[in-house]
Structures are given as structure tokens and as C-alpha cells.
């Protein structure tokens, strides 16, 4: 059994007890426990099921590399799947439920898969499930999906909040172990800004567990003193529970701070994403121990040797009472020694090396431990718990020499530096033969914009594992980084430690070396995804020689630990199978994040109502109060219509049109883009931007203009007013304002940078109200203040003046075919003017109208709408707008493009009006069919509907469309198949349905 052993446990506070549940059963623990240590203390070794075979899984590690101990935590809207028990700090009331099993963890039906595992090798699913064809989607795939996946999916919206932090620092140190602290100290001594991130809640990393003295003091004392010293420095920021998640180009790095995971009742955001810009980054991320690949290495009770040591020293917990240690290096002895000293029964140390180890071996021997050299594990048996170990000769085929009854196995396979952050942004690795691991190649660091390295590694993350060299490397890295970041001054004294002499390790990738298939197919590499030595060998045999192929074919390293635990073992097995040196096989790519980070944290605080900014006109609140039915237009909200009590939206639209045509309507046109273009070259600039001639426009006059892209396509339209000798105000569509402003800037900055022109986007500086309808002039005159007669203010003119005591600029322009004035006022006066117009308008039957009424009225008049008649493929010539294209100009944006063969092709579809025979509304977006099929078997088309409405003015459906030879085919009837299987017939007509002479607008 696993249990809380003696009174050790440097991280826990035994004076307090916390209660939690796992699969409904109540357990206890102490502050400082992780969920994993507390479960072990409560003799809960079996904690999960593997992905594919649903094999019983126990806790194998003590940190981020844990692949097995994943649980569903919390409930309701705070339920969260796949929480790693080894990095979950225990709190009172924690509820955890095991995953990937049914009905219970102890008796899981899915475990049947294990019984037929021989038929489910790597990639078996590519070779079967082929017939019958329909079965993949309907039978096989649902079955596979159901048995795969891990935790339960949350179902509710997340009630917690998240936030982003933006920081700049000179030196970022990732990792608060002794190397990170030494690096931070060295860097901070230069006075530079230093930020240190540590993923756990304590400083010092694993040194206090591994032992050793620093500068003559016990490691913990040195750590406490150093942290105190750093804390006192104003240029240093220290953060625990904050993981360095990723390194990106240009010194950008992400920190992931878990603020309330350990204290769910605390106020404030749950996670914080640190968006860091650092001149230099030091990754002092430590190293991770590798398991050994022997048969049954996945049975609960088999654990990394270092993890077993951690559990005992940090939390006073042991996984069993009768323990076997298997190792291929000296570090394994540390675990044996710690266990023995705690009074545990270490049955045997199996050292794979013929010659055994160095000083640590001697120490173990002196403690009376029995050591077998040249021996390893042939097989571990036991179902849900280790029962027995068979000992074999390491170099043999696995023949058992002896069997030991035991309940826990520690495996020590050597250490690999954590190179993830180094690699994220292109840092390269070299293979270190002596330690059998990949470590960062200092000559091939990630480089910044200046071509110089911006990441450096420190401590065991660089490769060295012994305390003395780790400290030295850490301090040197800090000094190096500070110097590169521009720091000056002398580095502080390098901390020193004495190292024990260690004997060379022996790489062991399969134990025993000549194991048969029977054993290899039980020797796990990827514990979560059930990838075994035999799977990697099968992949190699089938030609999946690239390490990326093997990964993808076998799913090695694709589990939630992303290969942290044993990817190197997998690579080595692959290299062995291919008979290639390991460095030639290489690694797969390391991608952010280092360990999974919450999607909530990435999203940050911009959610719900503040997901994106809402832009509001000065009259927004008035619209809201008056029942506006809102339509999002970009980030604006515009009233679509103002339905009255008991009125449907469509009815409101029809009423608004009729009232505007009969009386007078008000439209909030403030969202229309208003861009001021000014300067001695402004006219010349606008002549290039618009197809029309704008430079000849007279001050005081307006002109409707078209803007095309370089490719000739119509991108925006609007009225341009010349507001001064060298100033023009360009109106754009609502959606176009920002885009067109950027378009102007782009041309000015990249092409015509020597032209004297300024562009300013004044969209929000003005409120704009369209007063539209036969009674518009009367209404405005009733406010008094300026002369709006046709003589003083003719069509397409503007004038400054005053209305009802408010300073205004009035444009006499029309998008509805009615007598119409657009009145611009300073934004702050918008609501006041609007309310005056509503009040004074009562006598004239004024009503506000929304965007849909606007659309219908413009369609009745045959005016095009950007985004309806245009879609990025339409040129002005298609729309009969040739009149707006200056023939005098030698150039404008799009001119050359419009001369290309396809643009002048007479078969381009052209704008026409369309009327159904029965007056019904044509389906929007419908296509007119031609005759026959094209070479690809598609029905030939000859036109399409671009806008379609019910016109209250005409009492029938009207539509606009683009039709092959359309203008030459007036009166012809086209057929439009609807998606409802009906065929709609419509006649080609003039697109101006209403008042073609313009009698109503020119009064």
C-alpha cells in the first residue's frame, strides 16, 4: 500500500487537515500537498485509465511530466477535465473524479481492449474499418470516439474571469530552481530589470530533495537567503505559480499564472496570461527523469525514482513498503538511499551497468542495501498494483533469474534537460553521448531581429546535472544575459557546491537489451497513449522512418504530456530499429505551450459584452429607448427598424418607407465614414483614388464618387464635398470608413509619400442626420436659422449655417430619390439636434427610419449598394456607372486593371432591374439558369439577384441583378431556381423603379 510515512514532508503542514473526495470517497491531506501526494497518502495508487487499452494507471511522476493522473475536477459550471493531480495543489473541499473509464475506475469495460491488444498495434485503424463503407461514419468512428478522449466535456459557460498582463523586462528568468535563482542574482546585480517565473508555489526546485550544500549551507538555507535578497531588490520581480508557457519571436514570451486554482474561493481572476517582452530570456527549466522501458513498466506502483524521492521528502509519502530500484545511472541510488534512511525496505537495487556506480553506490552498500550489477527488470507483474518483479540480465533476452515479491518499483533512466522554451523559437539541440540526452546547442540559439541570440539556458536545462556545475552554469547564464541586455557592472560571486563523483551512465532503451516481442509489446514508452517499444519498431519496419512519421503513426509523444516523460526513449528505440545514431533521427518539434494552458486565459477579459468594442453614435441611447431593432454593422450597431407596439419588424420597415416617401423621415447617418483629405496635393490625390475627377469640384459643391482597388473592382462609394481650397471631405460607407482610411494612408505612405496631403478620419467627430421626404425642407425651415431654398442650396451643394440655434453643415444630397438634406453637427450636439427634429417634426409626421428602409428606398431608385451590388468582383462598368468614370484623367487606381481583357469582355454580367411576373419577392442571391451544362457538369448560369425587396411604394417585389447582356435584353424573362425547389420567373427591366425623372428630389 501507499501511505503517509514518517514525519518528513518539507512542503506540508501537518497541523492542519484538508478533506477532499476522489470518485466519491473521502480522503484527507494537508496544506502543501498536491492532489497526487494526498491520493498516495490515502493508498489510492490506481488513478486513471490509459487512452487506447484502458490499462490501469497509477501515478508515475511528481510534476508536469505526469501522463496518468488526470482527473475531472469540480462540478457544475466549474467542472474541468484533465487536471493533472501532480501539479494540483490540494484545497479543502476539492472534488475529483477519475476519467476515461466506465462504469468505474476499478472495473472498466473499456479494459477489454487490453485483452485484444495484440490486434490493436500502432496504426491498426489505418488498415481496417474499410468495409462496409457507411460503417466508418456510423459505427466505427462513433465507437472509437467514445472510447478515446479523456475527461468529460464541460457543458456550461465558464463563470470565472481571466486577464492579461503586459510587461517589459530586461531579463526574463524562467524557472526558480537554484540555477534560475543564481542567474537572477547575477543579472540583477547589474541593475537591470529582472523577472523570475516559477511554476510551482515554492522556490528552489528539486535541490532540497536531491541534497547538497551551497556555499557551505544546506541548500534550503541558501535558497531562502537568495530569495530574500532578490525580493529586497527593486529591479527584481518574483512570481510563483507562474509558468513560462512559450517563447516567440523578438523576445516575446508568455507567462501563465494560476491565481486561484489552489484557493477557489478567492476573489479575482483565476488565471493571468503574462505577455512579456524581454531583451533576454534565461531558461532555467531543469531536467526531467526518463523511465526505463521494461515489460510491465506501466503497472501502478512503478514510478520514476526521482518522483519516489520527491514524494517522500516533500510530502512524507511512499508508494509501497517493499521497493525495488532499477537504474542505469548513479542518481537512482539517491532514491534508494533516501528510502532506506527513512526506514523503508529497499529489497534490491538493479544496476544495469556491469561495473555499477560510484560513490553513491558505495554509500548505498554501506547502508546495507543489496545491489545487483548488470541486472535489470525482465517483467513486472500485477494488474492494478505491482506484485512481483522478475530480475534478468540486462544484456539478455529476459529470462528470469529470480522473482521478488514487492509492491513498488523505482525506475531511473537518466535525465533529459527541459529544452522546450529554448526550442520554441528555433534554438537547436545537440546529442550528448555521455548523458544520453539532447541538450541545447549554445552555438545555435534562437536569434532576434538583430541576428543575435536572445535565449540562453541555465543549470540542468543546459545539460549538467551535478549541483556545482548547475550553479556555475546558472550564474554564468545570468551574467551573459544581462550583458547582452546592456547591463554593466561586475557579476557577484558564483555560488559553489561540492559534487559527488558519479560513474558514467549506461543508456538502456529496452530492458533487457534483447527482449522478445512478448516483452517489448508490454514495455511502455508513451503511457497515456499506449505506445510500446513494439509499436515504434513496427512503425520503423513499415517505413515510417522519419521521427515525425513515427510520432504520427504511433501517437508517441502526442498525449497531454507531449512526450515530456519518455519521448527520448521512443526516439532511441526508433534509432535502434533503423540502425541509425540517435542524433540522426532527431526530435519532433517542440511547440508552445510548455504545459497546457487554459483557453480562458488566452481569451483574457474580452468576453461577453466587452468581447469587441461597441461603437455608438450620439443618438444610440435614443434609438434604444424608441425600440430600435439593432443590426451589427462592423463594430457599430445601427437601427434596422423601429417597430412600434404590436408591429412586426417587416411591417415597421414598410411603414418607415411609406412615411418617408409621403411625409418626412429621419435617419441616423452618423456611422458613415467622413474622411478629411487636405493639403496642396489633395486634389491630385483624390483624382487618383476616385474614378471621377475631384480636383475640379467647386468649393461648396458635392460629387458622388467611386473608388476602385488596384484590380479595378469597386470597393467603396460616397459623396465628396469640397470644403475648402485645399480640403475635401470624403464620405464612405459605414463598413468602409476604417478600411478606406487605411487604403488612403497606404497609398500615401508607400507610393506617394512625397505628396503634400494629410488624411484624418473624422467619422466620430460629427453626428449626421438625414432629413428625407417631401416635407423635409418645411421641417428644417420650422427650426429656423438658414436659407435652404433650392436657389441658395441646390441639389449637390452644401452650406454652413445654423438650425434651431445649433451650428450645422447641410449637404443637399439624396440616397432615396426624395428631397433630402444631410445635416452634420459636432458629435456633442447630435442628440440635441435629433430631438429638436423629432419634436418639430411632429407637425409634419416625422418618423425615424432604419437601415432596411434606407435599403429599400435606394433600390426603388436603382442606386447601388456596396456589398450588395458589389462583392469584390464587380467593376463600375458592370453597374452602368460609366458616367462616374472620368474620361479625361490619364490615370486612377484601377484604370489599367479595367482595361484587361476580361474586364472589357462584353459577356460580363451587367446591372438590370428584375420584376417577378406575379409581384412576389425574388429570393435574394438566386441565380438565373441558362441553357445546358458546362464542361464540369454544372448548370450554366446567366445572371444573379444582387438585392431583392418588397417595395411598399410600388406594392410589389423589386430586385436588382447582374445579367448576361442584361441591358440589351429588356423585357426578357429569366428563370431563377430557388433553394425551395420552386422556379421563380422574372422579367428584365430598368433598374430605376421609381421616379426615373428625379422629380421628387429636385424640388
Amino acid at each position, binding site marked *: 500500500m501507499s501511505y503517509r510515512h514518517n514525519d518528513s514532508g518539507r512542503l506540508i503542514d501537518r497541523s492542519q487537515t484538508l478533506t477532499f473526495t476522489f470518485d466519491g470517497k473521502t480522503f484527507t491531506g494537508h496544506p502543501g500537498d498536491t492532489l497526487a501526494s494526498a491520493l498516495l497518502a490515502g493508498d489510492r495508487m490506481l488513478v486513471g485509465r490509459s*487512452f487506447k487499452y484502458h490499462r490501469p494507471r497509477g501515478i508515475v511522476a511528481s510534476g508536469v511530466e505526469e501522463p496518468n493522473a488526470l482527473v475531472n475536477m469540480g462540478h457544475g459550471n466549474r*467542472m*474541468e*477535465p484533465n487536471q493533472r493531480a501532480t501539479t494540483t495543489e490540494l484545497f479543502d473541499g476539492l472534488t475529483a473524479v477519475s476519467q476515461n473509464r466506465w462504469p468505474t475506475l476499478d472495473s472498466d469495460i473499456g479494459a477489454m481492449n487490453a485483452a485484444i491488444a495484440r490486434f490493436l*498495434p500502432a496504426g491498426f485503424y*489505418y*488498415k*481496417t474499418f*474499410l468495409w462496409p463503407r457507411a460503417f*466508418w*461514419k456510423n459505427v466505427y468512428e462513433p465507437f472509437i*470516439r*467514445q472510447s478515446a*478522449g*479523456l475527461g468529460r*466535456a464541460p457543458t*456550461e459557460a*465558464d463563470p470565472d474571469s481571466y486577464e492579461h498582463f503586459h510587461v517589459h523586462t530586461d531579463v526574463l528568468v524562467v524557472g526558480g530552481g537554484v540555477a534560475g535563482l543564481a542567474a537572477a542574482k547575477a543579472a540583477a546585480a547589474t541593475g537591470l530589470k529582472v523577472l523570475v517565473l516559477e511554476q510551482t508555489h515554492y522556490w528552489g526546485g528539486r535541490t532540497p530533495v536531491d541534497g547538497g550544500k551551497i556555499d557551505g549551507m544546506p541548500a534550503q538555507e541558501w535558497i531562502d537567503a537568495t530569495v530574500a535578497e532578490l525580493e529586497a531588490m527593486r529591479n527584481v520581480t518574483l512570481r510563483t505559480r507562474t509558468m513560462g508557457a512559450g517563447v*516567440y*519571436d523578438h523576445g516575446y514570451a508568455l507567462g501563465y499564472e494560476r491565481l486561484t486554482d489552489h484557493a477557489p474561493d478567492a476573489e479575482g481572476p483565476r488565471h493571468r496570461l503574462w505577455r512579456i517582452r524581454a531583451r533576454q530570456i534565461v531558461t532555467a527549466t531543469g531536467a526531467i527523469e526518463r523511465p526505463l522501458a521494461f515489460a510491465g513498466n506501466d503497472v501502478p506502483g512503478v514510478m520514476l525514482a526521482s518522483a519516489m524521492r520527491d514524494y517522500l521528502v516533500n510530502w512524507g509519502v511512499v508508494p509501497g513498503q517493499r521497493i525495488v530500484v532499477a537504474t542505469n545511472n548513479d542518481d537512482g541510488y539517491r532514491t534508494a538511499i533516501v528510502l532506506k534512511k527513512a526506514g523503508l525496505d529497499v529489497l534490491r537495487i538493479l544496476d544495469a551497468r556491469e561495473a555499477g556506480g560510484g560513490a553513491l553506490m558505495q554509500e548505498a552498500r554501506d547502508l546495507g542495501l543489496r545491489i545487483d550489477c548488470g541486472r535489470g527488470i525482465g517483467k513486472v507483474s500485477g494488474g492494478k498494483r505491482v506484485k512481483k518483479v522478475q530480475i534478468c540480465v540486462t544484456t539478455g533476452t529476459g529470462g528470469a533469474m529470480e522473482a521478488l515479491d514487492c509492491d513498488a518499483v523505482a525506475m531511473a533512466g537518466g535525465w533529459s534537460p527541459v529544452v522546450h522554451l529554448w526550442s520554441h523559437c*528555433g534554438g537547436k539541440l545537440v546529442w550528448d553521448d555521455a548523458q544520453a540526452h539532447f541538450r541545447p546547442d549554445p552555438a545555435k540559439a534562437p536569434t532576434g531581429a538583430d541576428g543575435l541570440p536572445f535565449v540562453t539556458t541555465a543549470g540542468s536545462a543546459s545539460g549538467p546535472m551535478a549541483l556545482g556545475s548547475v550553479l556555475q552554469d546558472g550564474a554564468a547564464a545570468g551574467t551573459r544575459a544581462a550583458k547582452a541586455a546592456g547591463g554593466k557592472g561586475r557579476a557577484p560571486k558564483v555560488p559553489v557546491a561540492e559534487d559527488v563523483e558519479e560513474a558514467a551512465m549506461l543508456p538502456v532503451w529496452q530492458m533487457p537489451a534483447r527482449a522478445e*516481442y512478448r516483452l517489448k509489446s508490454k514495455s511502455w514508452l508513451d503511457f497515456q497513449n499506449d505506445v510500446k517499444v*513494439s509499436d515504434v519498431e513496427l512503425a520503423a519496419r*513499415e517505413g515510417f522512418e*522519419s521521427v*515525425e512519421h513515427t510520432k*504520427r503513426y504511433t501517437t508517441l509523444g502526442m498525449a*497531454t504530456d507531449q512526450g515530456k516523460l519518455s519521448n527520448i526513449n521512443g526516439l532511441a528505440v526508433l534509432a535502434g530499429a533503423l540502425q541509425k545514431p540517435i542524433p540522426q533521427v532527431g526530435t519532433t518539434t517542440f*511547440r508552445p*505551450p510548455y504545459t*497546457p494552458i*487554459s*483557453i480562458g486565459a*488566452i*481569451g*483574457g477579459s474580452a468576453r461577453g459584452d466587452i*468581447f*469587441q468594442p461597441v461603437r455608438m453614435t450620439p443618438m444610440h441611447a435614443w434609438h434604444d429607448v424608441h425600440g430600435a431593432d439593432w*443590426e*451589427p454593422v462592423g463594430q457599430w450597431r445601427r437601427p434596422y427598424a423601429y417597430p412600434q407596439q404590436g408591429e412586426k419588424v417587416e411591417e415597421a420597415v414598410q411603414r418607415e418607407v411609406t412615411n418617408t416617401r409621403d411625409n418626412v423621415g429621419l435617419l441616423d447617418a452618423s456611422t458613415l465614414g467622413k474622411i478629411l483629405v487636405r493639403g496642396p496635393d489633395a486634389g491630385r490625390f483624390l483624382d487618383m483614388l476616385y474614378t471621377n475627377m475631384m480636383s475640379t469640384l467647386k468649393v461648396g459643391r458635392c460629387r458622388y464618387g467611386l473608388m476602385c482597388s488596384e*484590380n479595378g473592382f469597386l470597393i467603396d462609394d460616397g459623396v465628396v464635398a469640397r470644403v475648402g481650397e485645399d480640403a475635401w471631405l470624403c464620405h464612405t460607407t459605414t463598413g468602409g470608413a476604417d478600411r478606406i482610411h487605411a487604403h488612403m494612408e497606404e497609398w500615401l505612405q508607400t507610393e506617394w509619400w512625397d505628396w503634400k496631403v494629410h488624411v484624418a478620419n473624422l467619422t466620430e467627430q460629427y453626428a449626421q442626420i438625414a432629413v428625407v421626404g417631401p416635407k423635409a425642407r418645411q421641417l428644417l425651415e420650422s427650426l429656423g436659422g438658414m436659407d435652404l431654398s433650392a436657389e441658395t442650396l441646390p441639389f449637390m451643394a452644401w452650406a454652413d449655417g445654423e438650425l434651431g440655434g445649433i451650428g450645422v453643415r447641410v449637404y443637399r444630397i439624396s440616397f432615396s430619390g426624395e428631397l433630402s438634406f444631410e445635416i452634420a453637427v459636432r458629435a456633442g450636439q447630435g442628440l440635441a439636434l435629433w430631438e429638436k427634429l423629432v419634436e418639430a417634426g411632429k407637425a409634419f409626421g416625422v418618423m425615424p427610419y432604419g437601415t432596411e428602409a434606407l435599403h429599400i428606398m435606394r433600390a426603388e431608385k436603382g442606386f447601388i449598394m456596396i456589398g450588395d451590388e458589389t*462583392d*469584390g*468582383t464587380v467593376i463600375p462598368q458592370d453597374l452602368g456607372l460609366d458616367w462616374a468614370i472620368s474620361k479625361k484623367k490619364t490615370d486612377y487606381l484601377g484604370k489599367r486593371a479595367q482595361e*484587361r*481583357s476580361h*474586364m472589357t469582355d462584353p459577356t460580363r454580367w451587367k446591372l438590370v432591374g428584375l420584376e417577378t411576373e406575379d409581384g412576389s419577392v425574388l*429570393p*435574394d*442571391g*438566386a*441565380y438565373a439558369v441558362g441553357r445546358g451544362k*458546362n*464542361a*464540369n457538369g*454544372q*448548370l450554366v*448560369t446567366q445572371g444573379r439577384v444582387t438585392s431583392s425587396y418588397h417595395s411598399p411604394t410600388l406594392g410589389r417585389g423589386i430586385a436588382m441583378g447582374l445579367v448576361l447582356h442584361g441591358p440589351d435584353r429588356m423585357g426578357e424573362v429569366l428563370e431563377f*431556381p430557388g*433553394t425551395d425547389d420552386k422556379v421563380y420567373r422574372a422579367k428584365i427591366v430598368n433598374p430605376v423603379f421609381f421616379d426615373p425623372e428625379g422629380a421628387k428630389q429636385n424640388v
Partner: protein
Amino acid sequence: MKRYSAFAIAREGFRAHKGWDRAWTAPEPRKNYDVIIVGAGGHGLATAYYLGRNFGITNVAILEKGWLGGGNTGRNTTIIRSNYLQDPSAAIYEKARSLYETLSQDLNYNVMFSPRGLIMLAQTHHEVRGYQRTAHANKLQGVDTEWISPTRVKELCPIIELKGPRYPVLGGLYQERGGTARHDAVAWGYARACSAMGMDIIQNCEVTGIRTEAGRVRGVSTTKGEIDCQKLGIVVAGHSGVLAQMAGFRLPIESVALQALVSEPIKPCMDVVVMANTVHGYMSQSDKGEMVIGGGADGFNNYTQRGSFHHIEETVRSLIETFPMVSRLKMLRQWGGIVDMTGDRSPILSKTPVDNIFINCGWGTGGFKAIPGSGWGFAELMATGESALCEAFSLDRFRAGRFIDESVAAGVAH
């Protein structure tokens, strides 16, 4: 080639799986081939496969600078749909989709085509109109799509939030036989079939030069030596500009990073693919249980296969709006690929200024779904000099201004 079947697995299960052959061979290049394809991505491999299958041309080498399928084919989010707006696009994507339906059986390799249904959400009036237009066009193109109501959207995808405060769901364009496939398997299945026809797939063989004589291709220089050919097909996605330069012509292509990410795996909770183009995000759930998430392309040219993090943030933010439950999931991994973007966001399948050099590129952010159709058409073009599927995608469309613009029907294209 040994056939794959449940029976074969059972047999091998009793003999330690020792009897499986290599899926494809690893030959050294020969001096001369009838056809060389550069790039063993999905498009290159499919081209080779249909050259053999439909035209009996099997003296073919496929040269790959890295590992086959290691470009965008092995990095994409595997969405398959054919609900495109423009006729030429709908034709080639629907051809591809229909070939996907039987691809596993044709290749004797389970590519896990999963026509689980795909919804493109309409979240503005403008999008509603755009998709209704597409639905009309698809009907005439023989593409089976349907406009569906918000209620139906919710039925198909219960984890969706219809009433997002900013962008409520107004409906969707639904393609019932759209879905996903296993990307690696597509590359591997084609590779295995090509190899079985006697074609040489040569990995770790980078093309470093193209030799021409009198305006006609003679062969290529590679890191494994000189190789001659009668015809050359360039199918290298993000590196197309580089290869075109070797052949002496230029392409209207820009290479930018496109990123994607997956969550940790969870039990099935989403049976359809959903794309939300207004907010720029899309999501599906892989058979392993990961939520597969993607968004828009980066805004600058790049060859590093890394992108900028703020794009991930934007994508994720918008998905939290659409699928609030994802907030409590964790991102397991993010990555990027270099996509080849043309000005009109449509591919190029074309002859080139050099005789007997053909180019297939420009698939940009959405070419996985096209692999079988593209291979089918491009093989026809290479073998016969003409292909109805490819015709509209020729290079000279840029000169004529005959663009095939798909951005018309709103949003991102995957």
C-alpha cells in the same frame, strides 16, 4: 502490395506483426523519369497517383525535401467541404469531396473520411445574404448544401451559444456531407498506392535547381544529384515562389503563416464542424477527442512555420463567444504552416512559361479538402495538356483579370 484488412491484422496479431511490409519503398533516384513531381504533400502525391491510375504513367518520381506529408498536408485542421461559391471552385472541391467518399476503399487505406456535417454560421445580415447566395449557387453546381435555422444549428451542435451578445447566430449554411479526414493518412495512403505502382518516392531530396533547354524542361538538380525528366510538376505549396524562380518565372503568390491549435482530448461533445467567419474562428473535434481550432492567417510574409501569438488570442476569444464551454479547456499545442496565397485566394493549376513544366499551388488556407480533386485534374493536365477542372485556374487569369474570388461569400476559407 499486401492488402490491409481486419483479417490481415488478425493473422499478424498471431505472429508479432512481423509480416507487414514497408508502406512505401525508399529507393535511390534513377537517372531519368517520364515525370517528376516536386513535393510529396497531398497534392503532389495525389497527382502522381492519378497519373498512374488514370493515365498509366508510372515512370514517376516524387521528390520531397523533408518527409512526405510534412508540409501543410500534415499541419492542417482537415476540414473538407465543397460549398464554394464560384463555379470553377465548386467543381474542383466537389470532385475532391466525392473522391474522398470512397478514397479509403480506393487506396485500401483508412483515411477516416468523416462526413459528419459542416456548418458555416451566419452572424450578420450580410453573411445571411452571402450564404443564401451560396446555397443558390451550390444547387445549380450539384453541391448539396442547405440554409438552416438557428434552432437546427443548435440541434446539430448543442455546445453552441446562439445568443452571443455581440454576434447572435442567425442561421447557417450546412453541408451534410462535409466533414474531416485524417490528414496524415491521406498522404500515407496515396504514397503507399504510388509506391505499389512502382513510382519512386524519394524523401530528404531537395530540388535545388531546374534545368531547361530551349524553353523546355530537361531535369532537376537535387541534394541527391541530377535527375532528368520529360515533364515536371511543381507542387510545393509555400515554397512555390522559390521553385518558380529556379525555373525562371514569377508567381503571384505570397507565403504567410497560418496557425492552428488543439485542446487536450475530451469525450465526444461536438459531432459537426463549425466555422464562424465573422469572428474568425472554427472548430471541430478529432476522433482522439481534441478540439481542433483555427482562425485567420498572419498579416505578414514569413517562412518560419511559426506565427504571432495575438492571432491565437483572437481566434480563441471568438470561439469562447461561440462555444463558451471551451474556456475551461486547455490548449495543448499550437503550430503553424506556411500557406501560399494568391491574390484571389484561388489555386493555380496551370502550364507555365516553360514547356512541360506544370504548377499546382496557391491552395493557401484551404487546400487539404481539394487534394483528390486537384490530383485528378492536375494529372489530366500534365498527361493530356488539358483539363476542364483546371482550366479556370490557369496562370494567365491574373493577366486577363479573370479572378476566381471566393472571399466574396464572406470570410476565411478553410
